[in-house]
């Protein structure tokens, strides 16, 4: 059943491609229905998993021989972590479509590429055969390029090419690591579970781990390989930046956890501190750079680098609480970043045609588009990590985990949170609540916030609130997966 999240997305994309005519309405409706179907399937799978408390084991979704000669199987399976991320993908997909309701040019192609990207992302989260995982991982690259290069704004061709090449270089590194792991293990299987059982020699793990980890982490915005993220986010159309920050960056973090850390626990131990340092630098650097940006979207772009730094730091704590915080942060940041990008890109930019904070300042936007202002206030609160929102519980867990493993980093990361509060409040005041001139300039096409926008915003707000108030809902999925036999070697290598 869960496999249909993948198939239905690709089918939707194919349907949109053959759809005759240029009328945008049917294209939107088809895209929305496809994404909703994905959301329903993912939600059912989550509920099902909870009911059977099956989060701790990889439950097969599909398993068939694919390329016999190399022992490659079409093997999809899900445990709690994959389910959480599949659910995130489904929510982000629906919200993204709601916020691209105003795409008028080449609507069909836009949504076809969008759904193809979504299908690839689902595929990565559900694959157990690493060849298959890699295939889906690369499928997700190309739609991103076109979404930005065709529908993007500032510097779109540069941003799109930079993003595509960074992703491709990252996946090239992953490919080298995977091939090497496959060959060393005897060239029989690409199955994650099978390969994880193979005792790779330490010397091999030491280089293979860092190659695969960095290959994935490039997409997760690991400093200093993060530079694609801000430019890519800024150049992308709203829905694409929502997906980029909301889901695509999680592909990187997920791959780092699922593949690099699971396969090479000894290598992980060797590199743990180094990567933690990079993660902490990312947290602080992203926050500080966000503090001085003049472009509204760049602020959110750099904040993503900072928040993803928390994910990577959480992974490196190698403690249960830190890891579960990292996975929760993936979900939480996916929702919150989507929300913030939606406000910036759709609600503000599409109406004012500027993202320059200096120009937005006199516009008194909180009066002109109060709904956007309210949404942004709540989104900012969640992003800052205020209690009651999902960001709080996730970042708290990561800091606690980090405190156990490397206390100094926990302190520095907490400073990063403070800087986060600073840049968030700054942008909030500048964009919406500046003491403007008495009579704000008339914005000619400043129409009211439309229904799809309201629906999308409410969907994301509800998600971050519900998870903030009842984190148990997701932690019940995440924690058993961390104790699964697949993750055992991780604990053996690191601290507990």
């Amino acid at each position, binding site marked *: 059943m869960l496999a249909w999240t993948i198939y239905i997305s690709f089918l939707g994309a194919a349907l949109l491609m053959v759809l005759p005519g240029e009328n945008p309405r049917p294209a939107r409706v088809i895209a929305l229905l496809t994404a909703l179907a994905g959301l329903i399937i993912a939600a059912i799978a989550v509920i099902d998993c909870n009911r059977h408390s099956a989060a701790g084991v990889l439950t097969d979704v599909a398993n068939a021989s694919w390329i016999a000669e190399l022992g490659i199987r079409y093997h999809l399976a899900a445990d709690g972590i994959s389910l959480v991320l599949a659910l995130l993908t489904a929510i982000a997909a629906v919200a993204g479509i709601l916020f691209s309701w105003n795409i008028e040019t080449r609507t069909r192609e836009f949504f076809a590429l969008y759904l193809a990207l979504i299908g690839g992302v689902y595929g990565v989260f559900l694959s157990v055969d690493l060849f298959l995982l890699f295939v889906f991982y*690369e499928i997700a690259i190309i739609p991103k390029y076109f979404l930005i290069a065709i529908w993007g704004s500032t510097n779109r061709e540069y941003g799109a090419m930079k993003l595509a090449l960074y992703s491709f270089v990252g996946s090239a590194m992953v490919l080298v690591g995977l091939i090497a792991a496959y060959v060393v293990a005897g060239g029989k299987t690409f199955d994650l579970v099978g390969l994880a059982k193979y005792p790779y020699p330490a010397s091999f793990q030491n280089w293979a781990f860092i190659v695969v980890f960095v290959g994935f982490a490039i997409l997760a915005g690991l400093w200093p390989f993060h530079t694609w993220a801000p430019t890519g986010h800024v150049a992308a159309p709203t829905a694409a930046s929502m997906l980029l920050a909301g889901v695509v960056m999680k592909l990187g973090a997920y791959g780092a956890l699922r593949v690099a850390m699971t396969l090479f626990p000894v290598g992980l131990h060797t590199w743990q501190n180094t990567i933690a340092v990079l993660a902490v630098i990312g947290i602080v650097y992203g926050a500080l750079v966000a503090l001085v940006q003049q472009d509204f979207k760049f602020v959110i772009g750099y904040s993503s680098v900072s928040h993803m730094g928390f994910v990577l730091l959480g992974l490196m704590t190698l403690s249960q609480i830190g890891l579960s915080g990292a996975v929760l942060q993936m979900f939480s940041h996916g929702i919150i970043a989507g929300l913030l990008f939606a406000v910036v890109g759709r609600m503000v930019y599409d109406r004012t045609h500027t993202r320059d904070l200096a120009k937005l300042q006199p516009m008194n936007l909180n009066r002109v588009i109060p709904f956007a202002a309210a949404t942004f206030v709540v989104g900012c609160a969640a992003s800052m990590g205020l209690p009651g929102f999902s960001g709080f519980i996730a970042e708290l867990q990561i800091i606690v985990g980090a405190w156990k493993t490397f206390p100094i980093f926990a302190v520095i990361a907490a400073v990063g949170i403070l800087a986060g509060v600073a840049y968030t409040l700054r942008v909030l005041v500048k964009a919406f609540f500046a003491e403007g001139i008495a009579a704000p300039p008339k914005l000619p096409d400043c129409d009211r916030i439309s229904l799809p926008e309201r629906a999308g915003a409410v969907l994301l707000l509800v998600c971050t609130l519900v998870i903030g108030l009842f984190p148990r809902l997701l932690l019940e999925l995440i924690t058993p997966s961390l104790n699964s036999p697949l993750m055992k070697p991780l604990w053996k290598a690191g601290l507990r």
Partner: protein
Amino acid sequence: MNLYLECLTGLTPEGMVIATALIVLLVDLAVVQEKPQTYRTALAGAITCLGCSMAMNWVALMPASVHVAMLAVSPMTQWLKLLLLLMTFFVAVLSWHQRITRHAGEYLAVLLLGASGLMLLVSSDNLLMIFIALELLSISLYALTAFDKESRASSEAALKYLLFGGTSAAFTLFGISLIYGLAGDIQLNFIAARLRGLPGEPLFYVALVMTLVGFAFKLAAAPFHLWAPDVYQGAPTPVASFIASGSKVASFFVLARILLTAFPGARGTASLDGFVPGWAPIFVVLAVVSMIAGNVAAIVQTNVKRLLAYSAVAHAGYALLALLADQRHALSALLFYTITYAFTVLGAFAVVGVVENSGRPASLGEFAGLSRRAPLLSFCMLIFMLSLAGIPPLSGFFGKFYVFTAAASAPPQLSLLWLVVLAVAASAVSLYYYLQVLKQIYAVAPPQSASPWLRPPLSAQVAIVTLAVIVVALGCAPDLLLGKITALLKSHPF
């Protein structure tokens, strides 16, 4: 008598192709000389396609197994001939709408002679016979390249091709003569037996390098690739696709056969620590230079045909990695790679041919906004370009993946990993220039002067869509092709 009969049965498909060539010529000359141009073209094309189909039928239905004198006909070679004929068929179909020449009969006859050269090439296991087949193929290709008599570039390309080709053929012939002198035989499997114990002899390595020069030229492996950009650009587009597809598959196959049957003992190793001279190090050098030179030069190209030429150089480099793999995977990886590459590049050139047919050279700008003017064609081009770049789930991805995996598992394990790293990096670079083409097609607006719709002829459209379907199908289900290859290799190594 019996021997001749057996030879003749084995050579029937080649005979059919040659007979078709003669019929095409004859009909064109004697029967329809006075008829209008389009009628003549259509008739010649129809006869060519019919002849190819009949030969394909024969190969598919009569799996002969002959091994006499200079001829080795096995299910493997029969199956390869089937594919080569299929490629020729596509080239003939795609030539149909191109205004290459007023003498379609002659053009197609030469194309068929080239095809017969290809077929002979894959089923000869004798150095002299291989040389003759290579020359038959090459001379046909020289003539085909020059066929556009109204274009200066075409003649220039042909001359360049001829001069380079002639020189490298001389090298190969000289190498073969040295091998004959050393081994006293030109039959591949006997050479292996005679040469046992010989490696170490300097003259042998001279002979080996000399022989390989001709093949490196045919494969457009750097530094023997200098003809490729001019020929790909100057030659009529279907001819360029023939050079890039059929000619490459056959040359790679016969190269692998020579190395693996005649010189298995002279392999050598190319790992960084523990160098042993032999042919493997030669190919490592060729592969490294090809991958770097091809990819770097392709980045700055503005003509799509020239870009495809440099990409072909890079792809020859990737394919050479397969030869370095262990015995079990080498040939199947090589065949899978070259066959899928051939179909992809046929499709890419077919799209270029359609765009170019509207009058101007195939510069990148000509592709601007193509997705608005010909959506189906653009989508097929997307598939071909991404397959060349190695994006899953297209066949180019699995081809590369298999070659890289095979090379990495060559004993001793991971000794060639550095080469795989280089290849993967080169392939990441290549995404840039393939995306340049796709950016023109999808992201750039069409020029004001362009007609709103580009209407490709139906024959070309059907061929292009078929090729795109093949590329996607072999990528999603590589077992379709790989299963066949491994089954054939298991029963009949060559």
